[in-house]
């Protein structure tokens, strides 16, 4: 029946609902409220029913009450004047004998986000903060943060912020956890004006509370402690040691938050043996995270990537747990691949190369490319692995799978440059696969290889002139440039056989080629060759600087910042938070209190525009979300 409600899309439904909401039968009114919420969910505008819905608020049916509250949360802002009508019921509810109802009322009132309600909220909130029931207190504490967001001055003048600070000593750990969240939240809203500073005695309280908190509370406390600066080494050691057992929590984010704390405190704790002990304890829980749900694995892997940049040797013994399972989601596979290359050492490079070979046989083209690139990274990094890597690559090329061959060609070029002369034997066989290669980057790589090592290929002249056939049809200039270069190199190495080819190449390039860069390059070579062949030799056949691995590590300062935010969005994106989080305190540069009212009006206009345009971009004054249809 409720499904039918969701599906019902009839004209003039609001009118019908209006009658139903005013029905004399309780059941019909209840059903109508449900339908209003269902319509609200699918995004239909039911704000017109405001007064009618409100009439049903005075009820002892908790379900109806909750639904109407939900309605109010969504529409209060559109009808600030009418909300006042609801205030009485709210205030009455905050005095109910049932703590669940008291908490519900205070929670919802905070969510209304209407300045007009503030005046009526203050008194009940004050009582609720001192409520004998912890369930009400924990809700009230959160409510203070909501009030603060709406109007910081009101929250402070009424002593709410102070009351929250005092609640840090609450006997109930769940209240304490919410206090920590609320204070952290208010601190952030204020842009660090210092709503709250941790000191030694509060840290002590938190360390006690952490053992009794729910997992979410533990995270809040751990996060708060990350920003704390311990007084001395002793205190830092003490905090770390007391929080060490959190590493064994079943909740992955508790584990990551603990790791985050330990890594942040590394600079305060100086005893090497302790630090080593911490590192040792971190490993098994980090590995265990890899058996959790794929999304959590993903977050863990992105973070492990960061941690490894700080402590490269941390997981070197655990390489096998990062081997990809066939059914891992792609995003997990990519990250595993990254980590594998990172933790690989001379000792285990051999099994890893075999593993990468397996990956290169999979069907996901992008993943295969990554795997092939990983092989070349290993080859360039470890001298001893180069031989094996080249073997793997030539094996892969012999499968003749087009994208594998292409990618392998590209990476082989770098390997050949890194180890000149070592793999001359392989080059000749590569020419057999010329027909498969058609991606410009791969073609250019192959042509470069042929030009550079022409002396090792038996019928180089034929091969090159064969490739030259399609010179003018080539759309990509990198291939054309590579062909011109190769022809010149071939000529310089063996003038007798290469003369005809180079002449033809330069002629075609200068006379018929449309690309000015290619023409220019050909002219330069031509003049150089005719004026001073020795000079040409020193230009074309110069020893290349050795290929270095590009640096995959983040800059130190950024890494420092991200390690402090381990587990957060920034660590997943590997971008500092300031690049994508828009600070409320900085908004428009206005003082907070004045701005609240102003933005309220602005937002109203955006709402109506959004309704017209279908999709809005939610926030004024910040980088807009690009919408593409």
């Amino acid at each position: 029946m409720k499904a039918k409600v969701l599906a019902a899309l009839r004209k003039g439904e609001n009118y019908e609902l209006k009658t139903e909401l005013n029905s004399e039968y309780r059941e019909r009114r209840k059903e109508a409220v449900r339908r209003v919420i269902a319509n609200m969910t699918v995004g239909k505008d039911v704000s017109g029913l405001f007064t009618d819905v409100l009439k049903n608020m005075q009820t002892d049916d908790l379900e109806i009450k909750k639904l109407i509250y939900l309605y109010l949360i969504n529409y209060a802002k559109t009808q600030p004047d009418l909300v006042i009508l609801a205030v009485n019921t709210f205030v009455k509810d905050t005095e109910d004998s049932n703590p669940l109802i008291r908490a519900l009322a205070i929670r919802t009132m905070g969510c209304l986000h209407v300045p007009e309600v503030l005046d009526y909220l203050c008194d009940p909130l004050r009582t609720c903060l001192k409520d004998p029931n912890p369930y009400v207190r924990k809700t009230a504490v959160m409510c203070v943060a909501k009030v603060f967001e709406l109007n910081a001055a009101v929250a402070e003048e009424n002593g709410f912020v102070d009351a929250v600070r005092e609640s840090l000593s609450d006997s109930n750990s769940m209240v304490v956890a919410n206090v920590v969240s609320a204070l952290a939240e208010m601190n952030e809203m204020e842009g660090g004006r210092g709503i709250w500073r941790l000191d030694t005695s509060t840290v002590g309280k938190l360390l006690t509370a952490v053992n009794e908190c729910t997992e979410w509370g533990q995270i809040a406390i751990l996060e708060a402690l990350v920003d704390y600066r311990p007084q001395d080494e002793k205190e830092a050691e003490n905090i770390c040691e007391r929080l060490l057992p959190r590493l064994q929590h079943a909740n992955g984010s508790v584990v990551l938050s603990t790791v985050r704390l330990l890594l942040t405190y590394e600079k305060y704790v100086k005893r090497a043996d302790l630090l080593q002990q911490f590192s040792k304890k971190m490993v098994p829980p980090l590995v265990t995270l890899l058996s959790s749900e794929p999304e959590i694995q993903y977050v863990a892997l992105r973070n492990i990537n960061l941690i490894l940049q700080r402590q490269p040797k941390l997981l070197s013994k655990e390489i096998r747990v990062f081997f990809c399972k066939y059914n891992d989601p792609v995003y997990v596979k990519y990250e595993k691949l990254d980590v594998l290359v990172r933790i690989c050492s001379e000792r285990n490079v051999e099994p890893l190369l075999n593993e990468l070979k397996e990956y290169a046989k999979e069907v996901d083209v992008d993943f295969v490319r990554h795997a092939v690139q990983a092989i070349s990274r290993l080859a360039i990094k470890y001298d001893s692995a180069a031989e094996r890597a080249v073997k793997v690559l030539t094996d892969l090329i012999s499968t003749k799978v087009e994208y594998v061959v292409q990618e392998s060609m590209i990476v082989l070029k770098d390997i050949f440059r890194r180890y000149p002369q070592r793999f001359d034997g392989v080059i000749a066989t590569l020419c057999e696969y010329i027909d498969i290669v058609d991606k410009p980057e791969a073609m250019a790589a192959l042509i470069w290889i042929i030009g550079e090592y022409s002396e090792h290929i038996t019928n180089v002249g034929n091969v090159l002139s064969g490739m030259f056939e399609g010179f003018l049809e080539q759309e990509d200039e990198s291939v054309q440039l590579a062909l011109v270069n190769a022809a010149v190199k071939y000529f310089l190495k063996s003038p007798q056989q290469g003369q005809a080819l180079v002449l033809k190449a330069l002629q075609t390039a200068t006379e018929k080629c449309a690309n000015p860069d290619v023409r220019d390059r050909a002219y330069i070579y031509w003049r150089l060759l005719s004026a001073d062949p020795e000079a040409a030799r020193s230009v074309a056949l110069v020893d290349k600087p050795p290929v270095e691995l590009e640096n995959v590590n983040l800059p130190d300062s950024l890494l420092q910042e991200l390690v402090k935010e381990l587990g957060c969005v920034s660590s997943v994106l590997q971008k500092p938070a300031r690049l994508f989080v828009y600070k409320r305190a900085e908004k428009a540069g206005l003082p907070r209190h004045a701005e609240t009212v102003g933005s309220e009006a602005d937002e109203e206009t955006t709402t109506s525009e959004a309704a017209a345009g279908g999709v809005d971009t939610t926030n004024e004054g910040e980088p807009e979300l690009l919408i593409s249809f």
Partner: protein
Amino acid sequence: MLSAVFIYNQKGEVLISRLYRHDVKRSVADVFRIHVISSPTPVRSPVTTLGSTSFFHIRYENLWLCAVTKNNANAALVFEFLYRLLGLGFSYFGRFDEEAVKNNFVLIYELLDEVLDYGYPQNIEVDTLKLYVTTESIRSKTIPEPPQNITMQATGATTWRRNDIQYKKNEAFVDVIESVNLILSAKGTVLRADVQGQIVMRSFLSGMPECKFGLNDKLVLDKDGGMSGVGDGESVEIADCQFHQCVRLGRFDTDRTISFELMRYRTTENVNLPFKVLPVVREMGKSRIEYEILVKSNFNSKLSATNVMIKVPTPPSATKCRIKVFGPGKAKYQPEQNAIVWKISRFQGLQESSLTAIVDLAPMSKQVAWSRPPISLDFQVLMFTASGLLVRFLKVFEKSNYQSVKWVRYMTKAGSYEIRI
């Protein structure tokens, strides 16, 4: 923290939308739908950041669960939360799909109001929530449980257990459930093998008892090895373990039993693989593939595995399969799964069974190499632990000092058991 939670169906229609903060509007739901759900490119990350808004999503069956935040939220926490929400749905409705969400949307809104406040997770313990968020609507005055008790439990140190439980017969069941994960290379070398174990307890114990139980963990045994002098001398090295301070997957049954997960562990050393698989897969030209697969069970002959299912992948171009099974079990070619599915309902210990198959391939206009996905196994073995873990003792201490009966069961099942070919 979280600004909103949305649940979408497969098409991207919003089934549930709950805003917790005023920094986003309901229309962000459309942004997610356009950029992620109906995006033509496959999802490359469960976290999508657009401008300053981050969307976290998990998928379950035909649903998308999405959480939205505007700040640098704790991503790990968000995903843990979303999965917990999923678990909550299961526990309340028995399943979590479009139908269930639509039929229970009122209840889901109530739950969402309870589990998050201002975007911060509060109490997500099913047992506690079930006391006051119920499928039947409750009148505030006729509430069956004094609300004070409920709130005490929702905020107390033992959120997961009430202290006034009484049973006639005090019993405790401990189940050790292990999943073996394996990646075996085509050459038969073990690339990765580990066991993830769970110790689940079902207790019918009165009051607030303290339970102690011991395992044959290497650390423990080495320490008191001298004095206890355990005969079998076998011990297990547990690589990592986690304990639950709270009941998870908790269920308040009609008979008021509580079953919950006591701890989780992981071992990587000396894994007893219950099954050995020796595959030979030959591609005979482009039109035929020959399979010879031998499976051996590697546990005590008195035990037996049940529900063994071996999935042997075949190329998508397969047209006909001729399959022969030597030994127990039946095999059938399942074209929609691109696999030969070989089922053995009962597999005795130290036994073997083999399968040969010849698969004909249709000529393809474009020759695509077959990626050779791994063979995968599924099975259950009772009274066997792949890690070798045993519960040495279980003691119950309670103020009233009652007698209790304790039971221990073991089971090993396949986690991700892959054999490459």
